[in-house]
């Protein structure tokens, strides 16, 4: 089977999965089985694509490019490159685990829930593999709709508020991005005479710096809300807390990465001059996200909120790495995206396990779970250590490389008399310490200390839950011990990103 066909199948399989789902007519167990089957097949295909992906080739691989709305130069253009290959694999890997791991957490309208899950998977995959800005935007916005239903129908007590807040926040950023997209495409048409939305064409548009700054601001708003970066983060705790477990896992595991992916794939390379101009500001915001997110995680009483704020902190590292424009930093950012996807998914699933049994998220309601649920405690400690960034885990690879990159980039500037990057890098290190602090506080009260739980007796993790968590642990260590494979597949793309952002694209007459 050709790669291109395989990628199309990976993309469209969830949509095809809607048909058998409709045929089982709302039977809960069959719906779950069908969805799991579809997702597993998708994962195997994505794995094949990953294995066949050639890291030494910079060109788009497994590409399909057919005109869609020919009048405006919109094409159905999808493909894989070093930037999206890992995230495609991550998405295909996480979502089936979510379905299996949260088997019992959805009991109402099970078929509708799985239909939404399939649609969400389709939209996320589409946004990752799209190589046409129109197509990307369609998928990017389409992700909102299933998530809107997921939080709104199966969410907690304040679901109605949380879901509207989630959609309005993200849509506001996107609507301004749409304005920027329209302007960008119009500018391309003025300069090149072609109507096209292809990323490759748009990366050639040269614009004056002032225009670039406005357009970048629109893109940053959209992506930074998704990441989320402080101060645009306030939707995240609400959405996470109110979402059902599978929703939280996908939100933390995949959706947030869409923001950082948007930056590395589109935002920064499209407007290199504006990016370099705004780097000090954006870097400061990243470090503020790291430290502020960690501080907030330190004082939360709701266990889901702890992980939600820790996500803000961890994704701050990704932004820092991308902005360092140092190869180690960029690659670290890519690894950190995947690592956070796996670790946050694991932690949210673990929270889901106790929530399913006790129906409360208050940290103070729990204590000494290690004695009643030893296996649970083992997994919890493993994911906690990965989150903290202990060597041999994926979290270490990502954060270490990002910090290395940040210092690499800061030192020459420090010698030139610009101390800001160095101070920011040092502040970012403190995030690691704070990270250890809040995770240890969490684990200490949760697992150790006087045993208490709102519901007795507590059953330990079931074999089903264990298999899911086990798969995630394997991924954590694979990425922690053998990051080479992943790094080699992404290196060239990271170098190209670096080069794109370093090269000025201001028109000659405006320089």
């Amino acid at each position, binding site marked *: 089977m050709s790669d291109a066909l395989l990628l199309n199948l990976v993309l469209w399989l969830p949509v095809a999965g809607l048909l058998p789902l409709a045929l089982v007519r709302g039977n809960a167990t069959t719906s779950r089985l069908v969805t799991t089957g579809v997702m597993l097949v998708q994962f195997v295909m994505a794995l094949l694509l990953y294995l066949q992906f050639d890291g030494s080739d910079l060109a788009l691989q497994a590409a399909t490019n057919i005109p*869609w*709305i*020919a*009048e*405006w130069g919109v094409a159905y253009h999808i493909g894989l490159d070093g930037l999206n290959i890992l995230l495609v694999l991550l998405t295909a890997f996480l979502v089936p685990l979510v379905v299996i791991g949260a088997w019992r957490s959805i009991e109402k309208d099970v078929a509708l829930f799985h239909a939404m899950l399939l649609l969400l998977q389709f939209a996320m995959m589409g946004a990752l593999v799209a190589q046409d800005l129109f197509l990307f*935007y*369609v*998928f*990017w*916005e*389409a992700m*909102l*709709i299933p998530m*809107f*239903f997921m939080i*709104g*129908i199966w969410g907690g007590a304040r*679901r*109605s508020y949380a*879901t*509207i807040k989630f*959609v*309005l926040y993200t*849509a*506001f950023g996107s*609507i*301004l991005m*749409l*304005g920027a997209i*329209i*302007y960008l*495409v*119009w500018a391309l*048409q003025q300069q090149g005479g072609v109507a096209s939305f292809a990323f490759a064409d748009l990366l050639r548009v040269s614009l004056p710096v002032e225009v670039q700054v406005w357009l970048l601001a629109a893109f940053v708003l959209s992506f930074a809300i998704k990441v989320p970066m402080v101060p645009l983060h306030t939707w995240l705790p609400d959405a996470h807390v109110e979402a059902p477990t599978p929703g939280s896992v996908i939100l933390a595991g995949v959706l947030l990465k869409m923001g950082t992916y948007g930056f590395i794939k589109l935002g920064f390379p499209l407007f290199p001059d504006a990016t370099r101009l705004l780097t000090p500001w954006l870097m400061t915001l990243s470090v503020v996200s790291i430290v502020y997110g960690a501080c907030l995680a330190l004082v939360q009483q709701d266990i889901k909120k702890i992980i939600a704020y820790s996500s803000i902190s961890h994704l701050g590292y990704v932004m820092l790495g991308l902005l360092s424009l140092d190869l180690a930093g960029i690659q670290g950012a890519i690894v950190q995206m995947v690592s956070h996807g796996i670790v946050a998914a694991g932690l949210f699933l673990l929270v889901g396990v106790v929530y399913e049994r006790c129906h409360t998220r208050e940290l103070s309601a729990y204590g000494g779970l290690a004695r009643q649920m030893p296996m649970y405690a083992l997994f919890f400690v493993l994911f906690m250590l990965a989150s903290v960034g202990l060597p041999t885990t994926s979290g270490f690879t990502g954060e270490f490389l990002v910090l290395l990159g940040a210092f690499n980039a800061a030192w020459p500037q420090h010698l030139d008399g610009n101390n800001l990057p160095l101070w920011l890098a040092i502040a970012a290190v403190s995030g690691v310490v704070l990270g250890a602090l809040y995770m240890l506080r969490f684990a200490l009260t949760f697992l150790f200390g006087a045993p208490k739980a709102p519901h007795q007796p507590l059953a330990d993790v079931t074999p089903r839950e264990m298999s899911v968590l086990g798969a995630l642990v394997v991924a954590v260590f694979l990425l922690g011990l053998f990051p080479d494979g992943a790094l080699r597949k992404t290196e060239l793309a990271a170098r190209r990103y670096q080069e794109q952002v370093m090269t000025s694209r201001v028109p000659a007459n405006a320089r």
Partner: protein
Amino acid sequence: MPDNQVLLALLPEHLLLLGMLTLIVLSLGRRGVVTAVALGVGVVAVVGAVVAAFVLAAQGLNASLFDGQLLVTPGVYVTKALLLALSIPVLLMSRTDFEGAEFPLLLLASLYGLSLLPSAQSALVLFLGLEMLSVPVYALIVLAMRRAESAEAALKYLVLSGTASAVFLMGIALLYGTTGSMQVSAVAEAMNMADPVATTALVLVVAALFLKGAVVPFHGWAPDTYEGASVPVTAYMATLSKAAVLVVGLQLFQGVRVEGPLVQLLAVLPLVSIVWGNVAAMRQDSLRRMIAYSSIAHAGYLFYAFLGDPATRGDAVVFYLVTYAAGNLLAFAVLPPHDNDVTRDHMGSLDGLFRHRPMAAALMAVAMFSLAGLPPFPGFTAKFLIFRTVVAAGYPVYAVLGLVGSFLGLFFYLRVVQRLFMRPVAEGALPAAGQAMLPGDGLSRTAGVLCGVATLLLTLVPGWILSRV
């Protein structure tokens, strides 16, 4: 041009006329028989007209009729066919509220006026077409009389629409006075004149269009009229009556780039309309009032396109009209039937619709997302086209303001979807098992499915329409 070709070129209109005559004769028969047959006759006449228009478009007929009063081209025929096709769901959903031959008869009469508009090349024909479209609607509003407000609604519409017509005539008269021509090309001439009378003429014409199309501050009649009319009539007014106004605008301003003081008029009032329509819609308890305010906002987007380049404006407006109408008609077609019109109109009647009519709820959600302009639904593509036209004309700031205004609309559309899926079932909405369906329920459902298919096609192959209009 030989007479037989005139007969051929206006075949869609002739078929509508034939349908009307048949219905008049038919209405002499027994009430029961009439009710059973009339709707079928109406649908056949409209479908015939649509097919005829498509066939004429495919044959590439290009002709100027009656000394240049009418101009037909393949693009004109496609526009006609699309507009007429949108009336089929209106006819189908009318059985819930209307019996007898009156509804199809009046609707066909109104469609006759609509059908003339895309081919009209003189201000007078445009005026006549618009009047022929509006007059039957006055009667349609009072025809059902399901509540006392219907009479008030009809009167309000009659008075304000009449005022709009008077303003329009005044504008045309001044246009004739300054340019000496009744052809639409007079608008282009007047645009280039520095003469204050010419400017006044244009402002009057635009104001009349704004009044008929319900753009702020000329929007006051719309919520009351929509609320007082029955569901099918509101659906018709919100979609095809509005489309007619836009078509008139397109005809008058064809080939004319809007310049000078008119830019402010055509940018600011539609912008205010977008914002106010979307904000006011948030507070509505009546579904039809909400649709009215939403249609005020949509009128804003549509008139925004007039800022754009005349070459691309037509595509954008027609595509927007079709998607907007498909979305609105879809929402009206799947409204759960109820024997009390006031209760049916209440937003609460939508609560938990998914629990007892999952298909209707899903289609309604699609309609809301499309109207809100969320991708991948076609409402997004339509909005994209409009704003692209505005940016390309060199007004990026207006485009961004319009986009932010459209963001405001998201809120109330999402609230409707929340009602459908995330609330417990409304009291008294669930028909007990075995209870007979209201008449026409099946037909409404067919209308809903037709609009759903249209929405799907507009999502997947938007290029089809764009390349043909």
